[in-house]
């Protein structure tokens, strides 16, 4: 999948990091998002700050390995250790500029399912649940999800909406239903970057990663992906982006 200079995950991290603007308050998750946050902090967004739903605010991400956001190195050097509801309060006030959400499956309107495959009363697979995912999806100003590009993950419609994106895809669905932020800004996959129309709707291909094609995207996506107006190529990770993420991922 890689051209040898970087892995698909490294490209995803680089793309995700570019969603972070300088001065942003970012709701950071673990794994790829925390790497993206580190890359942004050390490159174009030195004044970004990271919130962790466990109840932490940080500037620099820990240089040590984290299994979870509650690990001691994430606490040492924190700028605020508090209750989760206080962190959520900031998000409910619209003060979280960007959130990251993980998901088992996402649909063409950006809705995420992390709860049930099959009927909730008799599920085929019981997934772990929302955690803070639905909170981020509903309350942060904009959010990004990162996902391996597989047809079983990028589905036409999720059977259960844990964390709402653009709902039924109609224009203005979020606003009509009282959701706070503007919803999903991007789905970053191993093949491409999807984005959404400003007031909601269906995901469109914004850029395709170097070495991949629209046909490949279509073959691995559970909905009929429309022909993009202009097919950009995703900018690969820069050397300075790679230095940061490789320094931390070890």
């Amino acid at each position, binding site marked *: 999948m890689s051209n040898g200079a970087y892995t698909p995950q490294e490209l995803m991290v680089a793309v995700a990091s570019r969603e972070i603007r300088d001065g942003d308050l970012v709701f950071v998750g*673990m794994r790829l998002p925390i790497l993206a946050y580190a890359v942004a902090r050390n490159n174009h967004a030195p004044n970004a700050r990271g919130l*962790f*739903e*466990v*109840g*932490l605010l940080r500037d620099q991400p820990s240089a040590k390995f984290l*299994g*979870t*956001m*509650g*690990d*001691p190195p994430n*606490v*040492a050097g*924190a700028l605020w*250790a*508090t*209750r*989760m*509801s206080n962190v*959520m309060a900031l*998000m*409910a006030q619209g003060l979280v500029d960007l959130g990251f959400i993980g998901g088992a499956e996402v649909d063409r309107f950006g809705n995420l399912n992390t*709860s049930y495959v099959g009927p*909730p009363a008799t*599920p*085929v*697979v*019981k*997934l*772990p*649940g*929302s*955690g*803070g*995912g*639905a*909170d981020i*999806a*509903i*309350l942060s100003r904009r959010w990004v999800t990162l996902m391996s590009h597989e047809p079983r993950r990028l589905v036409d419609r999720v059977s*259960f*909406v*844990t*964390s*709402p994106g653009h*709902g039924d895809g109609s224009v203005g*669905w*979020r606003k009509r*239903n*009282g*959701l*706070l932020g503007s919803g999903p800004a991007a789905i970053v996959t191993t093949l491409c970057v999807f984005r959404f129309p400003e007031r909601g709707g269906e995901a469109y291909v914004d850029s395709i990663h170097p070495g991949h094609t629209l046909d490949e995207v279509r073959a691995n996506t559970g909905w009929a992906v429309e022909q993009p107006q202009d097919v950009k190529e995703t900018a690969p990770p820069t050397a300075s982006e790679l230095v940061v993420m490789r320094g931390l991922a070890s």
Partner: protein
Amino acid sequence: MSLAEAVDRFVPDGSAVAIGTALEALIPFAAGHEMIRQGRRDLELVGPISDALFDQLIGAGCVRRVTAAWVGNVSEGLGQCYRRAAEDGVPRRIEVHDHTNFSIALALWAAAWNVPSLPTRTLLGSDILSTNPHLRVADGLVQVGAMRPDVAVVHVQRADAMGRAHAWGPLGITEEAGLAADRVVLTCEELVDASVTLSDPNRILFPETKVVAVVHEPGGAHPSPVQGYFKRDHSFFRAYAAESRTAEGFNAWLKRWVLDLPGRAAYMKRFDVGALRVKGTALSSPVNFADE
């Protein structure tokens, strides 16, 4: 008080138990294992996310209902016992009342303030509204029904015998869980003199009037981390994820790590505690409470 006595007296069958309220740290695994050893049944587990402990209690058949935002193994993925129970009714069917992290906090604040519900915008547009009977939409907001645990079980770094607990690091929903609960059971790394806890009343977590038991149980949160005391035992979580993949594997794990052991002291002899212990020192700068 011994942990066995505390669990026997204060966590009866059928209790609603808030546990693991600080999310990934300070999880009261020792207390949960004692519930398993005592064959507790029909518990309702209440928490935000649960890193493996809910999965173990579910696998051991102790649980009737889960009221939580996330149940699994944080660094390893899905909770296999949770899946078997929810998907196949093994070892028994469980009821799931889904929440988000924010909504479970609000459910506890509602109970702490003794009101039927609290409003929020979170959950608008989520199908979770259709699976949890304690959530409803009114006037464009979600009303989160109060959740009053019978007992909150909380692991802290230090406490005195009167129940004044000091905990540090991110606390998740611990404060609201203790205030909302009918009673609080504490386990602690260090049982300290009251002069230590009362030297810093701002760090005391709960009013002692809520606390019914203080158990000195060093290592009682293993494999979860305890700031200043223990690192997270990542490989233990990984091994648990692998072994719990089948019901048989889980039962063998449970026998080895819980059922065959009399208590935490024996458990702590079964792995390299020294490798996990925090050896460094990064002390908080003291503050002066003098009054004249």
